[in-house]
């Protein structure tokens, strides 16, 4: 979706210092977000930097109607979709590109900074069908309402509702052994 554009609405990064703050406060999360789609840390970082680069270059021409944060997330998602498209073409429409780019490159994971639960979560999200995964991520990480997702993807709200129900059910079933259940215990206690 295209953004309409006027520079004065641009949430106050008048100078590079504001922009620096914006960059520093969102960079990490945006990279993680991109990584969920692309599964390659370097391409993910490039994609995110590209979004920031374009935003800065076009700062006089871009206006953000939503929050800067949702703008960035959306831009990164679109960037990822482009990368995936590109990869598909490059790899000659290889079949195994369900839900993200699966390059030959074996991903290396530093277990010191990624926990077991995080790995499991990512793995489970990856197992969602591509469209469902995208909808889930838009809802979960971009904080979009059902209506906004429906409008952006050109589908009905009911479809979004259904996909989200399926997605959460799937995630719950696959993650339930890993989730910490402190409240659960409290509830049992109060049963008496």
């Amino acid at each position: 979706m295209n953004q309409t554009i006027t520079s004065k609405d641009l949430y106050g990064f008048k100078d590079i210092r504001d922009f620096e703050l914006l960059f520093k406060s969102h960079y990490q999360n945006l990279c993680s977000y991109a990584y969920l789609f692309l599964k390659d840390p370097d391409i993910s970082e490039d994609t995110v930097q590209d979004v920031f680069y374009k935003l800065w270059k076009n700062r006089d021409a871009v206006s953000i109607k939503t929050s800067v944060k949702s703008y960035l997330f959306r831009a990164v998602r679109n960037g990822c979709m482009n990368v995936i498209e590109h990869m598909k073409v490059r790899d000659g429409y290889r079949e195994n590109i369900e839900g993200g780019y699966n390059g030959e490159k074996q991903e290396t994971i530093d277990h010191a900074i990624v926990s077991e639960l995080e790995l499991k979560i990512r793995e489970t999200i990856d197992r969602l069908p591509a469209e469902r995964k995208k909808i889930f991520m838009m809802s979960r990480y971009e904080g979009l309402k059902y209506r906004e997702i429906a409008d952006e993807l050109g589908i009905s709200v009911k479809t979004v509702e259904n996909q989200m129900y399926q997605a959460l059910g799937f995630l719950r079933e696959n993650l339930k052994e890993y989730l910490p259940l402190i409240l659960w215990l409290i509830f049992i206690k109060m049963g008496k």
Partner: protein
Amino acid sequence: MKNGKNDIDRRKLVLYLLDEISTEGRREVELWLAASGENRKEYELLSKTWKETGKLGFFPKEIDTDKTWDSFSSRLDENAAKRNITPEKNPYQRTVRFLYAAAAVTFLTWISITMVRLIQNDTFKKMETLASNELVIMDTLTDGSIVRLNENSSLTFAKNFRVSERKVKLQGEAFFEVMPDTAKPFIVEAELGSVRVLGTSFQVKGFRETDMEVYVEEGIVEMSAEKDGDMISLVLVSGEKGIVKYPDGELVKEGVITPDELFWANRKLIFRETRLSLVFELLRKHYKAEIDVENEEINKCLLTATFDNEEIDQILEVIGASFELDVEKGENKFTIKGRGCSNE
């Protein structure tokens, strides 16, 4: 009533969790949640799933944002640096200037990095306090939640409290309208216990050395308190009230709600089969009006009604119409006439 053990469309739980649900559906889910611990357990698993999947922290390698910015911003400079460069007179001057410029850049970078660090450290520590003295005050917190503080109360919270969980500390009495955000529960701590919410409106009373009271106007909250070293919790839904007894920490649910519980916060009066004698007493108190009742039988009528920020004339008019009473208005004085409710 549809609040049996498994008697709910599971889709509604997801809608509820994501705050996409209708008012009607919300009520249904809350009743279902209140019906059994089994149900709450199921919902809790769903909301935990949602919460845990929401952490966007994972990335397979460490990112040094400061360094990344430094190299990234040089890309921006190359692009933006098409400034007018005045031709230099001689190479020596140029070098000196260059050194000055280099020094300035280093200094600036150093300052900006230090500043960012300082700011970050500071916000962690910085607590903000909202305090009312003689007056009720209202404020909007950074997450959009609205708080009304009754007289002589105070509320303390971290300045950056939207970042992780939304935790506030209360002394006194407050009414909250919480912005829904299931990923970041809103937690109110008082001396005797705490309340955990998912987006709702409720009030907490926690003055020193008195019982702590929680009244839920809308939504669902979980109230916890420690008793003899154990954490005890209680789930409260719309219209319910929980109390932690002072000083032993016993947690109980109270059935009877005082009709003017929320009057100070939103001028709301909630009557549930309340005798008119009490209704009039409260009206006299809050509206500083004189109300005369001609016939003792009138006081026996039982009123069920909610008045939301209404004027006293309107309230009395409604009461009059409900029980076939005449309301006469004099100089700052109302006289209520009629047969009343003798036989019930």
